[in-house]
C-alpha cells in the first residue's frame, strides 16, 4: 500500500459568508514509501493546499487522504499523522515559534514526546545539517531570510518523520545554500529512506527527484520520471512552467537541426554529452 494515498479529493476554502472557492478538483495520487517526488505547478494551482492535506493541517471537503493507512482528515488521527509527515511551510515566519533557534528546532520533537537527551542530539545534528549550528543561541526573528528558512528546515528534520514535505524550501537561499539543502534532502531520502515531497519553482531542483508531478488549476496534469516530463518542453511552457537552461539549449539546438544523442536535464549531463560528441 502506498504511504500517502489521495483519493478523489476536492477541497474548497471558505470565503465571505456563503461563498466558497473550490481549489482542488478531484485529485488522485499515490506516493510510495521512500519515493522522492517533486510537485510543480503555476502559482495558485493548489500545491500548498495539497501539502497541508498531507499532514492533516487541512481536511478534504470530499474524498480521502490516507497516510500510512490512517485517514488524515480525522481529528483522532492528527497526532499519529504528524508523527509520520513533517511539513516545512512556505513562509518560515509562520513556522518559527520560539525565542531561540535551538528551542525552535526542539519544538517539533518535544510535541512528539521525544525524550530530552534524544532531543538534544537531534537538534544539534539538524542544525549542523543546515549549517546553522553556530546560530543556535540566536533569536529566529533576527535572522536573514535565508537563515530563517534553514532553521525551519532543521525543525522538521529533527522530528525524524518518515515523510517530509517541503514547500519551496530554497526560495530564499543562495546558490550554495540551495545545493546544500538539495544534498541534505537527497541524503535523507537515500540513506534513511525518508519519503520526500518537494514543492519548488526551480526546475533544476525538480530534475533531481525520482518522480515529477505537475499540477494545473487544482488538477494533476503530468506524472512521471523527470526524463519523461521535461521532454515536453512546449507543454510545460504552456502551463507556466519551464525546463532547466541546459535542457532548453539542447532542445532548441535539436529543433534547429543539430544532431544530439539525448536532451540532458542538468549542466553536468549537458557538458558530459558534448564532451562525448565533440
Amino acid at each position, binding site marked *: 500500500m502506498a504511504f500517502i494515498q489521495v483519493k478523489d479529493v476536492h477541497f474548497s*476554502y471558505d*470565503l465571505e459568508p456563503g461563498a466558497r472557492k473550490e481549489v482542488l478538483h478531484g485529485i488522485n495520487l499515490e506516493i510510495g514509501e521512500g519515493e522522492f517526488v517533486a510537485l510543480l*505547478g*503555476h*502559482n*495558485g494551482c493548489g500545491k*500548498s493546499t495539497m501539502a497541508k492535506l498531507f499532514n492533516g493541517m487541512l481536511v478534504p471537503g470530499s474524498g480521502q487522504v490516507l497516510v500510512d493507512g490512517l485517514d488524515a482528515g480525522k481529528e483522532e488521527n492528527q497526532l499519529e499523522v504528524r508523527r509520520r509527515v513533517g511539513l516545512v511551510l*512556505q*513562509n518560515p*515566519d509562520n513556522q518559527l515559534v520560539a525565542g531561540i533557534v535551538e528551542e525552535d528546532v526542539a519544538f517539533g520533537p518535544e510535541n512528539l514526546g521525544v525524550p530530552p537527551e534524544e532531543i538534544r542530539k537531534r537538534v544539534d545534528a539538524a542544525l549542523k545539517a543546515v549549517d546553522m549550528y553556530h546560530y543556535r543561541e*540566536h*533569536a529566529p526573528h*533576527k*535572522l*536573514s*531570510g*535565508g*537563515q530563517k*528558512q*534553514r532553521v525551519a528546515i532543521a525543525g522538521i528534520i529533527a522530528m525524524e518523520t518518515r515523510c517530509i514535505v517541503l514547500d*519551496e524550501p530554497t*526560495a*530564499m*537561499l*543562495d*546558490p*550554495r*545554500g*540551495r545545493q546544500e539543502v538539495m544534498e541534505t534532502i537527497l541524503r535523507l531520502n537515500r540513506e534513511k529512506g525518508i519519503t520526500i515531497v518537494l514543492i519548488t*519553482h526551480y*526546475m*533544476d531542483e525538480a530534475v533531481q527527484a525520482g518522480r515529477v508531478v505537475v499540477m494545473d488549476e487544482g488538477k494533476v496534469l503530468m506524472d512521471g520520471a523527470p526524463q519523461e516530463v521535461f521532454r515536453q518542453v512546449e507543454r510545460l*511552457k504552456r502551463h*507556466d*512552467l*519551464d525546463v*532547466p*537552461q*541546459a535542457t*532548453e*539549449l539542447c532542445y*532548441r*539546438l*535539436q529543433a*534547429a*537541426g*543539430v*544532431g*544530439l544523442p539525448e536532451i540532458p536535464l542538468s*549542466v553536468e549531463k*549537458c*557538458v558530459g554529452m*558534448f*564532451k562525448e*560528441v*565533440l
Partner: protein
Amino acid sequence: MSETILETKNLTYQYGIGTPFEKTAVEDVSISIEKGEFLGVIGHTGSGKSTLIQMLNGLIRPTSGQVLLDGQDIWAEPKKIRAVRFRVGMVFQYPEYQLFEETVLKDIVFGPKNMGLSDEEALARAKEAAAFTGLKEELWEKSPFELSGGEKRRAAIAGVIAMDPDVLILDEPTAGLDPRGRDVLLAQITQYHKKRQNTVMLVSHSMEDIGRTADRLLVMNQSRCAMLAPTKEVFSQSAKLEQMGLRVPQITKIVQELGALGCPVDPSTLTVDDALKQLLPYLKQKLPRKEAGSDAV
C-alpha cells in the same frame, strides 16, 4: 555621461549593539549608483543585502556613514525621511508584511494615497499597477490573506510601482513565482525601467534572472562590497564567485565548458538566446542531424 543618484559613504550597520549578539551586518560600504541603471545585487544569505537596501530608502538609520540621494544626506533632516521613502520605493523580501488592508486593491492604493494623490488618481494608478504585475482582476477585491504566495508577491510589487518611485528596489521579487510569472515580471520590470528611465535595484539569488536583466552587479560578501562591476565582468570570475557561495548562471557555465571544447562562443554569454545564436552555425555543421532511414550527411 552617467550621473549618480544614490551614493553611500562608509556605510555601516550593526544590529544589537551592546548585546551578546552584536552583529555588523553592513561594513564600510562606499558605492555610487547611477541614474537610470539596472543594478543587480547578489550575495550569500546573511551577507547584508537586505540591511543595505533598507538603509538606502531610510527605513533603518546607519550606525555610521552616510546615504546621499542626489547628493543630499537623507538623514540631514530626519523629519523629511518619509519623502525619501516615496522616491526610493522598496518591495520587501517577505511581501506578507507589506499587505495589511482589507482588500488587495485598497492595499495597492495605500501608497499613492499616502503620497497625497487624489482618490481617483490613486485608484487609477493602483489599477494600472495591478494589471501591470499580472494580478488577475478577480483577486482585486479579495483579502490579501486569501492569496497564494505568488499572488501576494504580485500585490506587494503593485503597491510600490503605483507610487512610481525614482529608484525602485526589489528584494528577491521573483522568489516564489512560477517560471512564467518570473519571466513576465522580469520582462515587465525591464520594460518599466526602459520606459520610465528610472533606477532599478534587483536583489536576487537567481543568477539566471540577474544575468539577463542587470547592467551592473553589486556583490556583497560577509557584510562588505566585494565587487561592483558590469555583469559580464562579474560572471567571468567563476572561481571567486564560488568561494562566496555564488555561481555563474547555468548557461554561462555551459558555454564556458563548450568554449574549452573548441566551440566559438563568448565565455561571458548570459542568456540561452545569446548562446544559441552563437552556437547554432558551428554545431549544425559539426553535428548535423541525420534524417531517419538515410545515411546521407
